[in-house]
């Protein structure tokens, strides 16, 4: 059973993680604005604070000060539930993310599974948001999110299953531990276990982009087609919560990619492993996520589904079979 100390520790971690999540949501949005500006030869926010560093605070205040409108036909309980449903799983998923061997809120031997199951709630929340809004753009966005997330959940899970076959553990701490001691031990480069590891990392990353509804897969929001998709009718902090959840989900996705493929807190050349390496790798991936968004236009919807069903899923299946064969052949 849990002792009082454990519960206090868990609560403190939870507060810390909520703070961490909120801080990252704020500053990833700033990174997004700055980086997109740099890539387009602009300068991004510069007015609020030095180099615009206080900008997220201003954005937050703006969203907080706005009224939460309830349009006439919305289904009020569901409409209000959706933003909460989207943000809570995102925060809860952070609980099992190990920042280092000891720095983890709750080490759970099914951590990986838990993150995926909480991640699935995200789809429901967006579906509910779109449906409850009683708005045709929101409904289209909601329908798209289901089609898209189901399509991309499959290859993602297939890749992860193959990985779990290699690590034979769902425990994130254990998975990272197995990759300790330099970048040649990372799952990304464990070609002995499966020569398709780099490809499976790529599949995982693409699916992660699609699961978090990031451009070029942002069919849910698709502001040029659907106004704001599932979020059309939300204002003020209702919208703000979706916004925070989007960035926290990116954070979780990048953390997961770091843990599963890039050795978590392990140093690439075997020196000074620690949480700083975890953060460096994770933010490098976050940078890449933003980089991808501002490099490519949104795909068309059938292009999106084709990519999943015709390319990613077959490759993921081959990857799975190959891993199984290699496990039998290479003892």
């Amino acid at each position, binding site marked *: 059973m849990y002792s009082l100390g454990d519960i206090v520790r868990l609560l403190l971690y939870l507060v810390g993680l909520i703070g961490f999540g909120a801080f990252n949501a704020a500053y990833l949005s700033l990174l997004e604005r700055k*980086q997109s*500006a*740099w*890539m*387009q*030869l*602009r*300068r991004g926010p*510069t007015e609020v604070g030095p180099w615009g560093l206080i900008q997220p605070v201003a954005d937050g205040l703006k969203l907080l000060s706005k009224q939460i409108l309830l349009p006439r036909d919305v289904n009020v309980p569901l409409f209000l539930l959706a933003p909460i449903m989207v943000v809570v799983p995102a925060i809860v998923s952070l609980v099992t993310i190990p920042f280092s061997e000891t720095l983890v809120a709750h080490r759970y031997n099914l951590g990986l599974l838990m993150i995926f199951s909480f991640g699935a709630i995200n789809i429901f929340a967006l579906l509910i948001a779109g449906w409850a809004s009683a708005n045709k753009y929101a409904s289209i966005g909601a329908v798209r999110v289901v089609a898209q997330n189901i399509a991309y959940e499959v290859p993602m899970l297939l890749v992860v299953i193959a990985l779990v076959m290699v690590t034979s553990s769902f425990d994130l701490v254990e998975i990272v531990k197995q990759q300790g001691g330099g970048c040649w031990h990372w799952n990304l480069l464990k070609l002995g276990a499966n020569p398709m590891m780099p490809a499976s990392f790529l599949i995982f990353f693409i699916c992660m982009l699609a699961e978090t509804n990031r451009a070029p897969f942002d069919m849910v929001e698709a502001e040029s087609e659907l106004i704001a998709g599932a979020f059309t009718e939300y204002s003020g902090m209702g919208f703000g919560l979706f916004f925070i959840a989007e960035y926290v989900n990116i954070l979780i996705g990048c953390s997961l990619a770091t843990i599963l493929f890039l050795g978590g807190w392990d140093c690439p050349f075997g020196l000074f492993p620690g949480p700083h390496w975890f953060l460096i790798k994770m933010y490098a991936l976050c940078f890449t996520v933003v*980089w*991808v968004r*501002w*490099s*490519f236009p949104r795909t068309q919807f059938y292009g999106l589904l084709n990519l999943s069903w015709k*390319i990613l899923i077959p490759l993921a299946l081959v990857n799975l079979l190959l891993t199984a064969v290699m496990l039998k052949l290479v003892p």
Partner: protein
Amino acid sequence: MINYFKEIILGLRTLAIGMRITFVRMFHHRVTLDYPHKTVTMTPRFRGHVILKVADAKPKCIVCMACQRACPSGCIKLDGEKREGAARKSLTSYTLNFTTCSLCGLCVESCAFDALEFSKKYNLTSMHKEDYQAIDLLQQAGGGK
């Protein structure tokens, strides 16, 4: 089957090229001008509202009324007087109704004494229409006394 893989490789290659371009772009020089803090100088042929030219701290205008007559919209109202000891008439008032001015330039062209020109002002805003219904050009040119 070969085509399938060719397509994937080609796709990945083009994606990589795209990402390289955006990455390199991050280190280009910025084209943004920090507008309220920095402004560009206006091009020579830019037409702001007309202003009176000044020579020896006095408007060059000799009150011949040609500009008032030339203006198709009747924007210009001016008046002058013959002062003791002055060789020519002096302006006592010169107002421009900028709300109807079409910036056609007929007034500038009609002035035989090179006393009018277009200004380079473009930061003009006001919450009151009156502010632009009678711009006192004489005052802007330094009073005229």
